[in-house]
């Protein structure tokens, strides 16, 4: 019976930008879940249970940025603005921007079929991705 190995070599399995981004989109989704979980657990450790309401915790969870807890009377505001949280926030930002911008590319690709059109969309997306990342990082690290 046919027993040739049925695993295609890396360059012959159709792995290209599209499919690479397809898997990246899934992986970034999982990564976001992980980072959000870290942020929420961190908030609870830092005493969020007594100091914050659910909405505040969620806002922090989605983006562990000191700016997001400005309005909360915190006992130790310092702990919420450490470089660690800025790094977690930065990671979340980059992952989210990558995931989101690619999501927009996917939607555009559904409707825009020409090579040229898709090229333009990709160019705009890359510009947007870099721009948003830089601005976002600036806001994060200066907040």
């Amino acid at each position, binding site marked *: *019976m*046919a027993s040739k190995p049925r*695993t295609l070599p890396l360059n*012959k399995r*159709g792995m290209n930008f*599209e*499919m690479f981004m397809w898997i990246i989109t899934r992986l970034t989704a999982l990564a976001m879940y992980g980072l959000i979980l870290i942020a929420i657990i961190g908030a609870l450790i830092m005493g969020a249970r007594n100091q914050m309401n659910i909405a505040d915790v969620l806002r922090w969870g989605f983006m562990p940025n000191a700016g997001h807890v400005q309005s909360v009377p915190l006992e130790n505001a310092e702990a919420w603005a450490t470089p660690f949280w800025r790094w977690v926030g930065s990671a979340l930002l980059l992952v989210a921007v990558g995931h989101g911008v690619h999501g927009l590319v996917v939607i555009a690709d559904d409707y825009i079929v020409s090579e040229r059109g898709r090229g333009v969309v990709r160019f705009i997306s890359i510009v947007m991705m870099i721009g948003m990342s830089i601005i976002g990082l600036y806001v994060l690290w200066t907040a």
Partner: protein
Amino acid sequence: MQVTLKIFRYNPEVDTTFHYESYVIENAQETDRVLDLLEHVKGYNDGTLSFRRSCAHGVCGSDALRINGRNMLACKALVRDVGEKITIEPLLGLKVVKDLIVDMEPFFDNYKKVLPWFINDSPLPADGRERLQSPEQRARFDDTTKCIMCAACTTSCPSFWASDDYLGPAALVAAHRFVFDSRDEAAAERMEIVSETSGLARCHTAFNCTMACPREIQITKAIGELKMATITGRVE
């Protein structure tokens, strides 16, 4: 029982656009197929009503239509299941040529793109007998061999609605049938074709195809397996 059919009508030689026409059928049975009702309308109400049909029991794939807003075969949809008020429209995403008849060429063109034929250029077994394949290897692609190319899946897909450039579920099902056949040797060529921008990446697992398939093929799963194959390379 009385059944009311509301049928999409368009005669390219007279009309500039489509309209709906209603027909009341008095002595319909619960077990009548929608196809039977269409035949009745054609026989007694309006002979000009045009639609495709052949086998009338769900194996030829001629009469895929949008019935009450959902793709199905008119010969597998019974009055009992679709109700007494039935709206019948042509498939979405293909040009309407006349009444319920759509232009199937783009659909078949997409099918032909994925090399939907067996490719194995290695020499045959020396005794001239069959190439061997275990029952497990055979079972691996059984589901996707069931396709009758009725186009119910492809024309239910939001990505195909957006653009008929997308290969569509049916073509990907055909690719799956050969990629996962242990005897076939052209998996790499097919993977290259289906992973192009108009291929796998356009599937967003909306699942309409699987819901519409009259053969109950797990289409979304087949496409999912092709997607994973682009990552892992495993095609067995």
